[in-house]
């Protein structure tokens, strides 16, 4: 298997391969820049900028939702998790998919009918505008920036790996380039440009993953059992590789609760992610919103089924050792598999397929960060600037101008933070973003739509309660405090990690060497995923806040009647 191992060392990547990868990156960037400029000519009003003129069809929006949602974390991350930990990687993808039923049944159509540009439009509909919009805007921006940081820091490391370059310089260049491109897409192309970038990416991603799946299945004569057997054998773990437990396998109670907590955040978080919610405004009516979610469910479902073939295929054909040697997190499993499927390292087919999959991964990152930048800058402008600061008196042109400035500002902040955070392990930020979305946003959205007594106080308690509790729990978790404990047994340290933690390599004090604050102090709360605590807090705080508010805001239920009639019938919808 030496031909397989040839890919691993970054230095061993040939100039031709690098040129191919960079060439394909450049083609994708050129196409998206052209689309963005084309879209900018068709973006005149605020509705064009925020909601793409509400002119996308259900199918187009379904593709764009897929493009917005399937991040590099799900493409490369889940394929890598399956390749290294087998079955447990699959657990993630199921939560990510089932979550869409919450969006389909309870949120998409009603939100489309009753809101205009942002999540806060619905939350503030029958509440006091300024406090509720402030809370929703803060939550939107926090969730989006956490998610954005995870994507950009990941992009720096990933693109360097795919290009086969090492060192801090290239990582910084990649982070800055990704940041500048996303700022360009959003400020110039608005929602129309961003949507088309996401559509192109979704088509590329499905094509790339589909092609690789087909090649893997052909290798095993379409016998899935045989593919799984080969993966289990190559992993050296036998049938345990095909069973739950390799990643979430610690036998103590906390790690199992952590798994439940993650599952809850995944399934309840999606319908509260602001960058997903604003996609429902880009279609003409509720029917099209429903159709777009149905399409997205089909696409995302098929995609995650394909990651099974990619992950187990990589375990069988590339091998865990070769993947770990390249990236201990497993993120390069899919590109390495592409090289093997194309004919192996050094072969023409292998180089082409590797370059193509690398370009798909790059496209994936760009489409997601653009969506996040748009969601946060829209909320900044529409919620905080136009409705809180200007009290609803801003002109359309003013709002769009501020949104573009906000995209520039948020993009700049994200670039700087990502450069500082590039050495940190920020993968937890994605799970945290889902947990905040489920704890802070979802209770407020559902109560707004379905509970007559919900009021301003309930909305504020729910949003701030969910947001603060999720963040606090993570700040007290093993993500921040890495000391060894019963839940976190001592980790084997590399010389570099030991030096960073200030302990000898033989130390048994360290459980999580990549902890943010301290490697040697044990975490007060042993959960990495806050959802199981913070989601109930969010719902409870929203309910208690509503029930204890002294004065009834909507005494006769008139505003709720207006909202409900709009949401269900589309009367008066924007």
């Amino acid at each position, binding site marked *: 298997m030496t031909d397989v191992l040839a890919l691993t060392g970054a230095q061993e990547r040939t100039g031709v391969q690098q040129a191919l990868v960079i060439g394909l990156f450049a083609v994708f960037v050129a196409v998206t820049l052209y689309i963005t400029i084309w879209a900018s000519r068709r973006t005149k009003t605020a509705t064009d900028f925020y909601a793409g003129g509400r002119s996308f069809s259900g199918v187009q929006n379904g593709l764009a939702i897929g493009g917005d949602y399937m991040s590099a974390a799900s493409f490369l991350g889940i394929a890598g998790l399956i390749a290294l930990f087998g*079955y447990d990687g*699959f*657990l993630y993808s*199921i*939560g990510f*998919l*089932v979550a*869409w*039923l*919450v969006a*389909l*049944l*309870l949120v998409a*159509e009603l939100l489309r009918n009753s809101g205009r540009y942002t999540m806060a439009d619905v939350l503030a*509909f029958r*509440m*006091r*505008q300024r406090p509720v919009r402030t809370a929703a805007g803060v939550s939107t921006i926090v969730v989006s920036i956490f998610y954005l940081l995870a994507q950009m820091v990941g992009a720096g490391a990933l693109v360097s790996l795919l290009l086969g370059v090492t060192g801090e310089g290239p990582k910084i260049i990649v982070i800055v380039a990704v940041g500048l491109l996303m700022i360009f897409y959003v400020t110039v192309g608005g929602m129309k440009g961003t949507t088309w970038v996401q559509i192109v990416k979704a088509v590329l991603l499905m094509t790339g993953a589909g092609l690789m799946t087909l090649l893997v299945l052909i290798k095993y004569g379409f016998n*899935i*059992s*045989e593919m*799984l*057997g080969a993966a*289990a054998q190559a992993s050296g773990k036998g*049938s345990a590789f*095909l*069973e*739950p*437990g390799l990643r*979430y396998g610690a036998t103590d109670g906390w790690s*199992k609760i952590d*798994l*439940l907590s993650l*599952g*809850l955040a995944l*399934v309840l978080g999606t319908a509260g992610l602001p960058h997903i919610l604003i996609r429902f405004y880009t279609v003409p009516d*509720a029917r099209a919103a*429903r*159709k777009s*979610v*149905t399409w997205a*469910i*089909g696409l995302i*479902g098929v995609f*995650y*089924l394909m990651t099974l073939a990619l992950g187990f295929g990589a375990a069988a054909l590339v091998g865990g050792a070769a993947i770990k040697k390249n990236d201990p997190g497993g993120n390069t499993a899919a590109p390495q598999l592409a090289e093997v499927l194309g004919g192996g390292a050094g072969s023409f087919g292998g180089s082409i397929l590797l370059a193509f999959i690398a370009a798909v991964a790059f496209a994936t990152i760009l489409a997601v960060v653009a969506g996040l930048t748009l969601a946060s800058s829209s909320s900044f402008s529409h919620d905080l600037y136009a409705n809180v600061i200007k*009290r*609803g008196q801003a002109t359309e042109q003013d709002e769009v101008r501020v949104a573009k400035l906000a995209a520039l500002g948020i993009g700049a902040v994200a670039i700087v933070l990502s450069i500082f955070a590039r050495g940190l392990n920020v993968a937890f930020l994605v799970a945290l973003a889902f947990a905040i979305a489920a704890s802070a946003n979802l209770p407020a959205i559902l109560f707004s739509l379905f509970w007559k007594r919900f009021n301003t106080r309930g909305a504020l308690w729910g949003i701030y309660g969910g947001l603060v509790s999720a963040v606090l729990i993570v700040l007290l978790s093993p993500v921040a405090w890495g000391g060894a404990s019963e839940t976190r047994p001592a980790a084997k340290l590399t010389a570099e990690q030991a030096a960073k933690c200030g302990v000898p390599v033989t130390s048994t004090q360290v459980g999580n060497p990549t902890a943010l604050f301290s490697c040697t102090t044990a975490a007060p709360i042993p959960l990495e995923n806050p959802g199981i605590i913070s989601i109930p807090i969010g719902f409870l705080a929203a309910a208690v806040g509503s029930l204890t508010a002294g004065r009834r805001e909507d005494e006769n239920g*008139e*505003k709720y*009647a*207006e909202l*409900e*009639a*709009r949401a*269900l*019938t*589309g*009367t*008066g919808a924007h």
Partner: protein
Amino acid sequence: MSHTPVSSGAGGLTSDPRFAELRSRFRRFAFPMTVAFLLWYLLYVVLSAYARGFMSTKLFGNINVALVFGLLQFVTTFLIAWWYGRYAERRLDPLATELRESAEGAK
């Protein structure tokens, strides 16, 4: 300070018996279905965490209960999405359109 969104007069619709019917049709489908798929998903996660022996049972070849259970989550998600789409087209959309048109005609 607190400004009410411009009223479209839609609120009056809620006293229409057809609106009560629409709301009840929507909730009768969406609420129980949400409870059902969440419980079904949680059952899967709980079994993955606490019933690993059962999940590891081999069914045929290298296919075990865990894999089939996971794939069934995909199947039910697709089915519920398809079923809701059909239900909404037949039982919700016509009534919603009728109500919207009557509200807009009344203005």
